[in-house]
């Protein structure tokens, strides 16, 4: 995984709020600037919210790239559609997207509904839905024992992108995915150079929302979506099922994963975890708020239109392989751990972040690697002076 977040200030106010907010300790301060360790970042976006000077931002692609292609398709996430309250406004949303320059706008709700159907077919051991890139990153980084419990399905945007590519084989096709959160910006070739994805450009919804709203107008065009896919964007809108555990906040998601690792949730069949409040509806790159959107979504429920699309199982699977080369031997890992532990015991343990790192454990890790010195600890230096 790669970080989609960039630091933009020339001079930082050094409040350390972002460093303290980062659950992966991926941020540090060097020469008065924030440095993001891209290998550690899980793209949760907590640092962006924590910065009071708007110094951190998620990098998204732009509509300027529409001209690079002969035919352009916009993938519309259900979380954006669900912000409309009547079917009529869904139709104007799709019409507005075409006005922005897309040749076609396709709702992801069909794939989302189809995937959920597949997820619910699981009758074996507890499995975890793989629809949320942040949850997937979190599991890979912090709950590795649960990687084998992740369902093998690919992201709806990827499945749909593969489908449309089949249809437009002979043209220079550009696929743009509108993203409701930071983590989804990673799932495209551009702007982050993740060439393994089928989607070409990831665009943040907030970046183009003013353009969408200025193009919203009456339309006679009809629109199709699968209401079951739309309902999946909000865990509070999904029909209750005893076998499925739904959670919707970052902290509860990490608690649930912790319990799952201890085997305490084995009575469930499926964990569908939404780290954003209100679910994808409340994604930080969606305009509007999760409460209103949930209410709108319930109004849309009356348009109970289901469109089935049949995609073979094989094409639903995530086949991207992760590079695991360069792993150290267990002996080396244990030696390094002991070295870090010995340094850690000498540090004060307040996790004050005054050194510019996420806490004493990270400081010990950096000292062990030779990147910092023990004298860089401001508390120890002060205590020694006294």
């Amino acid at each position: 995984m790669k970080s989609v977040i960039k630091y933009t200030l020339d001079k930082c106010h050094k409040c350390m709020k972002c460093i303290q907010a980062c659950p992966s300790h991926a941020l540090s301060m060097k020469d008065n600037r924030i440095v993001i360790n891209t290998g550690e970042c899980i793209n949760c976006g907590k640092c962006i919210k924590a910065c009071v000077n708007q110094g951190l931002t998620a990098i998204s692609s732009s509509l300027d790239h529409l001209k690079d292609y002969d035919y352009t398709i916009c993938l519309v996430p259900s979380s954006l559609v669900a912000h409309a309250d009547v079917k009529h406004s869904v139709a104007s949303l799709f019409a507005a997207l075409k006005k922005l320059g897309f040749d076609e706008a396709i709702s992801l709700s069909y794939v989302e509904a189809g995937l959920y159907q597949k997820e619910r077919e699981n009758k074996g051991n507890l499995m975890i839905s793989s629809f949320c890139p942040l949850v997937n990153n979190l599991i890979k980084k912090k709950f590795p024992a649960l990687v084998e419990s992740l369902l093998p399905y690919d992201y709806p945007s990827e499945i749909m992108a593969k489908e449309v590519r089949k249809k437009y084989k002979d043209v220079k096709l550009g696929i743009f995915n509108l993203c409701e959160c930071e983590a989804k910006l990673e799932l495209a070739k551009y702007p982050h150079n993740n060439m393994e994805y089928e989607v070409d450009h990831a665009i943040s919804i907030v970046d183009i929302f003013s353009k969408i709203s200025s193009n919203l107008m009456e339309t006679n065009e009809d629109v199709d979506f699968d209401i079951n896919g739309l309902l999946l964007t909000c865990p509070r809108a999904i029909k209750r099922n005893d076998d499925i555990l739904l959670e919707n906040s970052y902290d509860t998601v990490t608690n649930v994963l912790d319990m799952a690792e201890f085997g305490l949730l084995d009575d469930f069949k499926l964990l569908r975890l939404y780290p954003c409040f209100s679910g994808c509806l409340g994604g930080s790159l969606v305009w509007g708020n999760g409460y209103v959107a949930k209410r709108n979504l319930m109004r849309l429920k009356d348009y109970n239109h289901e469109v089935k699309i049949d995609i073979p199982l094989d094409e639903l699977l995530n086949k991207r392989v992760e590079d695991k080369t360069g792993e150290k031997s267990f002996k080396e890992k244990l030696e390094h751990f002991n070295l870090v532990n010995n340094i850690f015991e000498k540090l004060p343990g307040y996790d004050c972040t005054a050194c510019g790192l996420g806490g004493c454990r990270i400081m010990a890790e950096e000292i062990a690697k030779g990147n910092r010195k023990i004298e860089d600890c401001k508390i120890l230096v002060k205590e020694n002076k006294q």
Partner: protein
Amino acid sequence: MLTKKYLVKEKDYVNAGKVSSSIKKELKEIGVDESVIRKIAIASYEAEINMIIHANGGEIIFSIDDGIIELVFADTGPGIPNIELALTPGWSTASEKARQMGFGAGMGLVNIKRYSDSFDLKTSTEGTTITLQFKVF
């Protein structure tokens, strides 16, 4: 070589699982293989809960040496009168309070044995010591 000792207090339901959480966290920091972490997490949680429910608390010693992770759960409780029965799936002596809190399903020792690579249980009226070993590779 690494050794750590943790104390577990009697009937301390509120803090139940904290030692296992610490052990799990350390295993992740070391970078132990995920399949091994899962086995240790499940076994150590069960054993820790057992110490809280059935025994008068005790100590947990976590050590790593030469590719073997060892966990020793030593309590000063009343001992297990019938080991064969205690290792029968579903057999439980948990109090009503423990059951209300979701513990005491009768799978504790069974799972501990199932998930560990080596399982040793010594028990008397003075207390019980369970020693578990896990191969790192």
